[in-house]
């Protein structure tokens, strides 16, 4: 089996059952040891996790992390909860539902006890953002947490300004796409938003000094629906996109709020059969045994999955081109896992953002399960 020749291996850390129906999406809380998942069963499930002290990285017999189900939010959404997003503060969670609404959830005020992962406090709906005409498919907080973006089958992308006391104000409705908008993703540093659509394109937006949002550029190249987006985590110089056409494309994004924005496709990764539903990009962990060629620097790990049920981990590296400000990107597949959820589709894959756990990711599948995995460089 080809996967054995690859330099890294993927191991199951935990399996979280409980959803009554297809699980669509997972989200790691950026600050607290909480994992949330959402499902067609209209609920959000919260898990608390902690390092399994008994285990060192070497011994994989006992799992790295221990998970425990803390609570299930019925949400009250009348239809599927399609996507969830934590605010950077980790205090609020946004839910995007097929009932066309965005729910904003926070915990009652007794949550400052870290570690406890806010097990105790009840999660309550602080406000409900109405405005989309049809199913909401994705939601995302900007780096600063001051902005929230949502998208829908109604072809629009909405940008909301976050005020204190879960008060939201719509800053703009962007009607650039000609079909459903499947995914929105914020730039890791600047207030730049990317959206992916059923119309096969990706659009980038930013706002002018008078806070009017506009579409800065359109990235075309995919042959079918673009399902998912991921920014290169540290500088956001690159954007990755996964599509129904079975490819992942890497785009170099230049310019920004200051100068005119451009995006060019510099690479297409192939390795999946059929739709790619989800990708995620983390700083990853260095491969100690590998001697970096001079100037080469790792841009981290890109994880992808989709309808073929396969998970692929790619390492993306960058090497400056001598005598130019540009640099060359290269990628290698470092690990692959087939049938990550048995015969079922995998809908979502997300790296753990918390320090020390960059090599841990979670997946959500049509079997209603959430699985936690870790990537390890092979010793020999």
């Amino acid at each position: 089996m080809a996967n054995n020749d690859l330099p890294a291996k993927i191991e199951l850390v935990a399996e979280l059952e409980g959803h009554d129906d297809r699980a669509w999406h997972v989200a790691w809380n950026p600050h607290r040891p909480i994992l949330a998942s959402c499902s067609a069963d209209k609920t959000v499930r919260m898990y608390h996790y902690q390092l399994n002290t008994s285990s060192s990285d070497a011994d994989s017999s006992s799992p790295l992390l221990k998970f425990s189900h803390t609570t299930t939010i019925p949400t009250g959404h009348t239809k599927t909860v399609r996507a969830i997003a934590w605010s950077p503060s980790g205090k609020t969670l946004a839910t995007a539902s097929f009932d066309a609404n965005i729910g904003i959830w926070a915990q009652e005020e007794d949550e400052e006890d870290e570690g406890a992962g806010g097990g105790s406090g009840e999660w309550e709906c602080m406000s409900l953002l109405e405005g989309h005409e049809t199913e909401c498919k994705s939601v995302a907080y900007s780096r600063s947490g001051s902005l929230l973006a949502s998208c829908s089958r109604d072809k629009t992308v909405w940008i909301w300004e976050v005020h204190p006391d879960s008060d939201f104000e719509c800053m703009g409705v962007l009607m650039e796409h000609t079909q459903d908008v499947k995914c929105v993703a914020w730039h890791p540093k600047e207030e730049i938003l990317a959206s992916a659509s059923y119309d096969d394109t990706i659009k980038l937006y930013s706002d002018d000094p008078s806070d009017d949002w506009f579409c800065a550029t359109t990235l075309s190249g995919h042959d079918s629906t673009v399902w998912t987006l991921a920014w290169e985590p540290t500088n956001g110089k690159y954007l990755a996109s996964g599509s129904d056409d079975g490819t992942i494309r890497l785009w170099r994004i230049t310019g920004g709020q200051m100068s005119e924005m451009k995006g060019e496709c510099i690479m297409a990764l192939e390795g999946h059969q059929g739709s790619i539903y989800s990708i995620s990009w983390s700083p990853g962990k260095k491969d100690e045994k590998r001697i970096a060629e001079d100037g080469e620097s790792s841009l981290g790990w890109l994880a992808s999955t989709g309808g073929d049920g396969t998970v692929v981990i790619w390492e993306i590296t960058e090497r400056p081109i001598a005598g130019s400000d540009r640099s060359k990107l290269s990628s290698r597949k470092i690990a692959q896992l087939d049938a990550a959820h048995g015969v079922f589709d995998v809908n979502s894959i997300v790296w753990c953002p918390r320090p020390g756990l960059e090599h841990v990711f979670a997946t959500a599948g049509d079997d209603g399960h959430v699985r936690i995995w870790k990537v390890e460089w092979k010793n020999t």
Partner: protein
Amino acid sequence: MSSEAFNPNPTIFVPTKSKTAAAFLRSNSLWLDDGERHGDAEDYEEDSDEVEEIDQDEIFELIRSISDPEHRSMTLEQLAVVSAPQISFDSADAQRQSRRVTVEFTPTVPHCGMSTFIGLSIRVRLLRSLPNRFKVDIRVKPGSHQSEHALNKQLNDKERVAAALENPALLEVLEQCLAGATP
């Protein structure tokens, strides 16, 4: 459903009798099945652990009797919208556990606005009736519909299908069409 008819007077085809061999032919032994055994209702070869693979015909059985949204009294088979030969397996993964099936259907007219719905009803019937390891692609017969590409794309977008099934009005009509189809 829209009121204007896309094809008020479609052609009807004589259903191809599903090849269900008479009881006595099934036992390919020398001996004719005994009346007793017909009498005692079902009699399964308990012992035989031979596996009967799901085949083209079995899948066709599932969808043949779905009724046409525009002509409820008629089945997709009668209108030749679906047919056994239009169901194909991906031979590549014959060994692998999960199987890819492609179900092709033929709208009665190239401008048929019901095609999405028909495709959806086939999709749902199979979603409910085939094991999870079966991955189904639903496509209109090439050249049989003016917006072929859009149709195929929509019918195979799992997110759109999922959302459609949460639309009560649509679901109701769907159940009606499938009801004609309950195996």
